[in-house]
């Protein structure tokens, strides 16, 4: 098992490292002091699980979780006081630890990770299909995802969520259409939309749009249509999502 510790406080990282070193099946432990370092380490070190602090400078742990490229590592949140925020937040969240925690509690979390890893090793359904987002919207009200981290060609940059006009799937990626570029994020549209909350609405099998960017709905043949955005962009809007779009902007 490969582990990445992400925490901005050195003693907190040291403590996790000291306790994790005592587990025999952990082959490598890496650490990162913030979200940017975390994404860089993930690309290089390919950890199976993150021990992820929530309150960190510039990029919160929840924003790191929302930015993880597929296939995403599992997450054990480690936090002082945000237990309400992380309960059932993310399909990849296996457990959460409340600081300060003892060795026995950490071992239980590691055991859960082990079980999840074994299940994933079987040819059974992928781990991230299950786990509906119970209470996700309440969490987002408390801790909205305001920014995503995107690593492209070894450079990690921040994309503000309120600068995204619309989102389009492109093979294994989603393209985030902003005023200055279309960065790619290796995620599914469904998983991303769950994390971004009600500011975005799905308008097509392959597209979603930020509700407050819609200028008007243009109807084409057979009930299909297009959305004209303030930016002038046109986004496909298919019949089965049309009602949802109308409801979202009403």
């Amino acid at each position, binding site marked *: 098992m490969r582990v990445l510790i992400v925490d*901005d406080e050195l*003693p907190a990282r040291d*403590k996790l490292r000291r306790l994790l070193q005592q587990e025999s099946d952990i082959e490598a432990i890496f650490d990162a002091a913030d979200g940017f370092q975390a994404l860089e380490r993930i690309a290089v070190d390919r950890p199976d699980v993150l021990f992820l602090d929530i309150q960190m400078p510039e990029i919160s742990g929840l924003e790191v979780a929302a930015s993880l490229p597929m296939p995403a590592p599992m997450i054990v949140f480690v936090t002082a006081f945000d237990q309400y925020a992380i309960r059932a937040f993310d399909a990849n969240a296996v457990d959460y630890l409340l600081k300060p925690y003892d060795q026995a509690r950490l071992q239980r979390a590691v055991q859960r990770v082990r079980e999840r890893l074994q299940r994933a090793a079987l040819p059974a359904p992928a781990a991230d299909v299950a786990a509906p987002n119970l209470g996700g919207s309440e969490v987002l009200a408390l801790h909205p995802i305001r920014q995503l981290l995107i690593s492209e060609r070894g450079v990690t940059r921040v994309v503000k969520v309120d600068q995204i006009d619309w989102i389009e799937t492109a093979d294994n990626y989603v393209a985030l259409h902003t005023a200055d570029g279309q960065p790619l994020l290796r995620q599914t549209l469904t998983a991303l939309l769950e994390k971004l909350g009600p500011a975005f609405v799905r308008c097509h099998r392959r597209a979603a749009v930020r509700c407050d960017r819609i200028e008007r709905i243009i109807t084409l043949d057979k009930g299909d249509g297009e959305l004209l955005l303030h930016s002038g962009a046109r986004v496909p809007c298919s019949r089965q999502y049309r009602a949802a779009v109308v409801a979202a902007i009403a």
Partner: protein
Amino acid sequence: MPSRNTRILIAAWLLFWALMITVELQDYIHSGGKEYWHPVLWEGSSGIVATVLLLTQRRLMRRYDYMLVSPPRWFSLQMAALPLYWIVFTPIVYAIRHAVYAMLGESYTHLPWPDVFLYESIKLSLFFTIFMVVLFGVLSYQALLREKEQAQLADRLMREMQLHRLTQQIQPHFLFNALNTVSQLMHVNVEKADATLIQLADVLRATLDISEQHETTLATELQLTRGYARVMSERFAERVEIDWIIDVRSEVCKVPVMSLQPLLENIFKHTVEQRRQKTRITVVAYCREGELTVRLDDDLGILAPSEGESKGIGVRNLRARLQALHGDKGSVTLTQLTPAGVRAEMRLPCVC
């Protein structure tokens, strides 16, 4: 529009002189006088000149009102002006009377000048002394009211600060992260873990303290703030560096309780915890020309434009408490430094 109190004082003053004129008039009629304007002119001229002189004195000596707390000093200062009254009062009053008589084609007869001076000076001295006693009473009463008002305000602000700290500021994040730090330190350095626990306890004790005390010495406040700083420096080991430049003479100065630590806490909350780079903080305290200055500078903070005047309830409450304790002489300001950083500066009067 003058205040209610001022209007009452003016009315009392006019009534007093009306009384004086009436008495003089009655006395004049009693002794067989017929020209009723004579006594009115005599007392009227005295009244006007006395009013002008006393107003001038008030204006010049208002800034010594702080001496009211030691009446002998205040009285001797006021009485020092009396000889001037002897010299100035009689010539002006008699000049007015002579002039008015002359304009109406009459001549003003009175006692020879030495007698006039003696008589007027004795009368004036009595009058002046009585006036000062009354003035002392009025001013003391006003000061008393003001003080009571200030004390009530200070009490209210104290309660507000305590309530705020109890409900908001015992930050679970601070507490649990600090405990987690200690939990790790114990395996590395028991002495350090122990020291950190004690400092954490000091911070908690100060936070939970709801005593009646408004002020404490800077030394005590510094001890609490250093304790908080040590806990935070353990947590953010690589991300913060704090320099303390404290003039020892300033440590006896009285400062509002919980004034320094919240300012440092602000820097951690808004800058150290939000930034990935290392933040350098300098805490400076010195006392010069009767004023204590405590200054906290960081080198990374950014003050949002609107926040300069009212950043958070903490700074607003501290500002109000300083105002209640020291009036315009106590202040706390936040300023943006260039190229980066925020300066928090507290000033208050202190004898040193």
